[in-house]
């Protein structure tokens, strides 16, 4: 299968007043690939995700999703077109059940807001994809639990499940491993491996071991710009990256 590009960001730039948070970053996410973005705090990684997903508008540059120019599209429209994302902080619906969290996410693809007489939980399309997503994220046993009451690791899993429930082609994952224990991390990495076929995944992560294990390609950002890009071996041995990390990591 050809590794075609599902999401392409070109010269992505975001300025806040005089400050440039992201400066001319170009990035390509290919099918069957996990593309990790690493960098120090404040390097602009989360901002990059926000820009790609449409949560904040670009100052400059363009975004192309599945071959279409989506620069002017709103975030919900991009999401419906197959761009899924998870958040750095848990942004689940804490008062809903785990299942309902997934179902609501799945509903985004089958909104039918006008069908006010149909019960939401009878909409088989969304319930099926919700169950499927929860299953893939390993949440089968927690379906009826209130989402706010499950453990932190489980909430991170739910984040991913909700993202999957929308049946995305491209996944933008913002620190999915943050705050997870070793066992939970293993499960999450296994899941990423499972998802790799047929998806293009952008992974922002601080856990370097995990990144080097799972990523096909790595982009290193410092101060809003890309300083290096390549496969894990290349990055591991890149002197620039070492300098940047040593110079700024302290």
């Amino acid at each position, binding site marked *: 299968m050809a590794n075609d590009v599902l999401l392409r960001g070109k010269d992505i730039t975001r300025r806040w007043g005089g400050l440039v948070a992201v400066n001319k970053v170009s990035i390509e996410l290919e099918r069957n690939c996990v593309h990790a973005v690493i960098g120090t705090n404040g390097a602009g990684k989360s901002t990059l995700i926000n820009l790609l*997903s449409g*949560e904040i508008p670009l100052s400059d540059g363009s975004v192309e999703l599945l071959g279409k120019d989506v620069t002017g599209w*709103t*975030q*919900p*429209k991009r*999401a*419906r077109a197959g761009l899924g*994302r998870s*958040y750095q902080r848990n*942004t*689940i*619906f*804490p*008062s*809903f059940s785990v299942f*309902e969290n997934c*179902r*609501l*996410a799945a*509903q*985004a*693809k*089958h*909104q*039918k*807001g*006008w*069908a*006010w*007489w*149909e*019960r*939401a*939980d009878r*909409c088989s399309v*969304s319930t099926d994809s919700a169950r499927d997503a929860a299953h893939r994220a390993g949440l089968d046993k927690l379906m009826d639990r209130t989402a*706010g009451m499950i453990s932190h690791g489980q909430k991170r899993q739910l984040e991913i499940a*909700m993202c999957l429930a*929308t049946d995305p082609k491209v996944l933008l994952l913002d620190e999915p491993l943050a705050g997870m224990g070793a066992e939970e991390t293993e499960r999450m990495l296994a899941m990423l491996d499972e998802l790799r076929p047929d998806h293009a995944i952008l992974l922002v992560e601080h856990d370097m071991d995990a990144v080097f294990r799972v990523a096909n390609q790595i982009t290193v950002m410092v101060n809003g710009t890309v300083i290096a890009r390549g496969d894990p071996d290349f990055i591991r041995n890149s002197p620039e990256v070492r300098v940047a990390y040593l110079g700024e990591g302290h």
Partner: protein
Amino acid sequence: MDKSKGIFVALVFMALALYPFVGGGGYGIDIVTKIMIYAILALSLELLVGTTGLVCFGQAAFFGIGAYAAVLFSGEQGAASILWLLPASMLAAAVYALAVGALSLRTRGVYFIMVTLAFAQMAYFVVHDTPLGGGTDGIYLYFRPTLGEKLKFDEPLVMYLFSLGTLVFVFGFLTVLLNSRFGRALAGIRVNEQRMRGTGFTTYPYKLAAFVISGGLAGLGGALFAIKDGFVNPELMSWHLSGAALMMIILGGLGHLRGALIGAFAFLLLQEFFKAEAIFGEFAKHWHLGMGIVIIAAVAVLPRGLVGLPEVLRKRLAGSGGGESRIGGLKSAQGGAK
């Protein structure tokens, strides 16, 4: 809604249906009719505040526009049919809600509260300062509408039963609506709008639709109010009524349709109680004091409103501490403050 709560609501509606036949005198019927109409207003607001998390401080404007529309559409020639009068009044309120919602949904939190208030005040001053609706003195209905040949709304019992029917309809409609995909999306928007957008929901049309439906339902209540009283006045649109409607749903308990129902009854019956001279004698004049104290006490001991009362009692009896406060919910209102 789980079973016991469904049964509770069904019992309430049954009791209301039986009331005029087993004990309601003329005044009782009149006052319960009024409360049911206000309950419709409260339910309409609950759709915005409790369900969607949009705190609207101008609901009285929709109520008032429905009421004025009912009177102005009725004309002076003869009795109109309620079958077109009510939908027409609802439409008038919904159209206004569409305009207000389209603009005010640009703002958030406390700013949203104030913009809805501003639009309601504008509507208030328009009817107050122009001769269109009789100015400050208001206008009255020449003929109450009819339903077919037999049912005339001059008859209090007809008015009562029709209001009850409308209330049941509104309650049922909202129950179905909230369980639909649309309703679930609204709930999602209340809890976490950012996530909803990230997931692929364009939230603005959802909120606008909720606003329009809410306005239409409030207009329905207003139209019934006008038909019952036969008289409308700008005060119907004043912020006092918007405030009272908010108090009803908060007192009842946000996030539950039955909370709006309970809140409307509790709020208005408490007023009647404190105003009763038979109980308070000359002090009934100071009925606001009693209301104020009860409200303060309710906030202190019932953080989740009257709906949470059984739970509080259960916990008290079981000896453990009070209930934890509502999860998620109306944090959006806080957005502006920070």
